[in-house]
């Protein structure tokens, strides 16, 4: 905790210094801010920052402030009289959210093809065979993450990358793992949690399982996603259609 506080404190100083030089945040700032943003802000603001009408946090420009200090105050204090609530973020945490938002403006979204959600849905349930591992609204399988609200938290560009290069950036929530027990059984599944004494998996069979490490011979968190790359399975337009479909999945009705 202390270490994190120091790091974020350094982050603030560094970010403040960087602000004058054109917002050159560290990759760690942007990554931390992204996690906070996706966990706390996307329900209203959306993954691209444009979820609230006439507000686009991903544009690099903010309506109610220009400097990081001004925006930090808004993130922490909220905007009275609007749906923007106060938060319990520290100034350092709020600063990383700004770092993330400013990074959105400079990340490449150009070059992405325009897709069609209906065609994407047909690919999802048909040719792409996505439901063999993923579910949407309770339909599909549990091997891969549920995608019912993936469009509420992931940007189109991230989804495209996940389809083309599934192993490039496996989120820690979705890491595959393999356990070999002392009695020789091999168990594969998704790593849900671990501690000094136990490992917790969602087995590929769909069962939640806690394993005592004293019963385990081998335990590995795998770097290769069980998901195949669709780079050569779908053409560029099909991938764009699939991505467009996924961005419509917000989970809320």
């Amino acid at each position, binding site marked *: 905790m202390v270490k994190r506080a120091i790091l974020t404190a350094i982050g603030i100083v560094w970010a403040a210094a960087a602000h004058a030089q054109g917002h050159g945040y560290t990759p760690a700032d942007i990554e931390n801010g992204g996690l906070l943003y996706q*966990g*706390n802000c996307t*329900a209203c603001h959306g993954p691209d920052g444009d979820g609230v009408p006439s507000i686009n946090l991903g544009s690099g420009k903010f309506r109610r402030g220009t400097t990081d200090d001004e925006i930090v105050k808004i993130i922490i204090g*909220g905007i009275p009289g609007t*749906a*923007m*609530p106060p938060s319990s973020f520290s100034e350092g945490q709020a600063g990383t959210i700004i770092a993330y938002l400013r990074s959105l403006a400079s990340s490449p979204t150009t070059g992405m093809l325009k897709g069609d959600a209906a065609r994407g849905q047909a690919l999802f349930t048909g040719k792409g065979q996505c439901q063999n591992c993923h*579910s949407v*609204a*309770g339909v599909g399988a*549990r091997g891969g*993450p*549920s*995608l*019912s*609200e993936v469009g509420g938290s992931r940007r189109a560009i991230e989804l495209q990358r996940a389809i083309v290069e599934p192993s490039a950036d496996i989120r820690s929530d979705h890491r595959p793992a393999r356990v070999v027990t002392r009695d020789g059984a091999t168990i594969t599944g998704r790593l*849900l*949690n671990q*501690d000094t004494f*136990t490992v*917790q998996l*969602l087995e590929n069979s*769909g*069962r*939640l399982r*806690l394993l005592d490490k004293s019963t385990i011979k081998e335990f590995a968190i795998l770097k290769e996603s069980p998901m195949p790359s669709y780079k050569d399975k779908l053409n560029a337009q099909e991938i764009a259609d699939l991505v467009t479909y996924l961005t419509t999945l917000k*989970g*809320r*009705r």
Partner: protein
Amino acid sequence: MTTRRRGLTVLVGVLAAAASVSGQVREWTTYSGDMLGQRHSPLTQITADNVKNLELQWVFQARSLEKFEATPLVVDGIMYTVQPPNDVVAMDAATGRVFWVYPYIPSPLARLCCGRVNRGLAIHENTLYMATIDGRLIAIDAKTGGLVWNIAVGGARPDTGYSLTVAPLVVKDKVIIGTAGGEYGVRGFLAAFDAKSGREVWRFHTIAGPGEPGAETWAGDSWKTGGGSIWVTGTYDADLNLTYWGVGNPGPDWNGDGRLGDNLYSDSVVALDADTGALKWHFQFTPHDVYDYDAVQIPVLADIQWQGKPRKAMLFGNRNGFFYVLDRTNGQFLLGKTFTKVTWTSGLDAKGRPQNMVPLTEDGVLIYPGVQGGTNWYSPAFSPRTNLFYLPMWGDTYSTFTKRPVEYKEGQRFTGALPAMPIRLLTPGPSINRRRPEEGWGGIQAIDPNTGEKKWEYKMADVVDAGVLSTASDLLFTGGREGYALVLDAKTGALLWKANVGGSVSNGPMTYMLGGRQYVAFAAGSSLFVYALRQ
């Protein structure tokens, strides 16, 4: 345990509640542990003889400091609970190690009179259901923690004061919930949703409107803001196919001048057809309530010997200070008797209607029980072994009720003047009690349904906000605001075991069997404490 078998367990929970335990696994699949609301478990590993060997196995610490009111579910060895306000947590039920958390951030527009709380989940096959404080019903995959669907409950706008804190009840293929918000001038309702699709199947307005029976009990347009919250989970009789729910107070709480009439179905229990939501019967405990004596209790269903003959009864320990026995086939009043000091009425007539209700005045009038009632939302229990009803209750509590003008403004509190009482509202953190006994205390009472007489009473210095769990080894598990988890002898009320868990026991304790061990879970303060016998 297979999905099919679990589905069966939920459906015939009525039977399962009475069945003996043959295997090593015993689950807890609904808020009350069964569809009858008895909060009685057939487990017997923990007994009066060995209870001294209870030992803390693990603790779950919620991130929130809000009151921890959820009763967990245990299915397939996994415990599911809700960290307030609306995060779903899946844990290994033997160790408490967390598999996943489904975090949900409710709308900042949500407004609640009495805490950003949640009372737990329902499960149907492999799907969990949670009602949220911002008026949504969310279905979550019980294995992955992934979202299945998240629907806005029609008309339950959080900015107008609607909220959902109740643990849903699954009856067959439907998920039944009810809205809170009676302190904000909502018009409450119960609604059933298709478990697969989330489509609304039926709705019952707890406040009768024009064209509905009972509309004549509301003056003018007062039904529009009539309240009638649902705060706790209902029960279900599979033979009668009726589902029973206690309905909350009329709005505004403490000034009835603008809503002359009986104000149906506030402060009532309603019996609805589980397939259609059609009202079969109702019984109103407190007509034209001005004390906030809402019927926010579990309607406990028990088959008892009534005057020598078997009877399908409903046992109802009410906030207004009376214990009631009704015939649950038709709502007939069988018995009503006070379990605490009552001064708001001179008594009940032959049909159970209170007589000579004390009106409120501008100068204030002192009334027993106080505004928090003789009991409240915390679950009672019924043991088919002892045939006793176990009621968490408050003794000698009073409030000064004062009539003040009140005007409805959308989204604002619509209550009148909050009555003054010596007992402070429950807040998280250490409890301090410097009251004299005559300023209020708490207890667990064992009541004989045949007579309404108190068989025994276990007294606590402070009041109780905890439910009661009964087991077939004739033990009761409960607690109190002063921070003790307690085990009592169900036959005598003798204290058999206690542990200081350091915060008000704030849910109904529950129990389950896993790997040959019986576990008991108490929520207290903002944490969940799980005990089993020392090995």
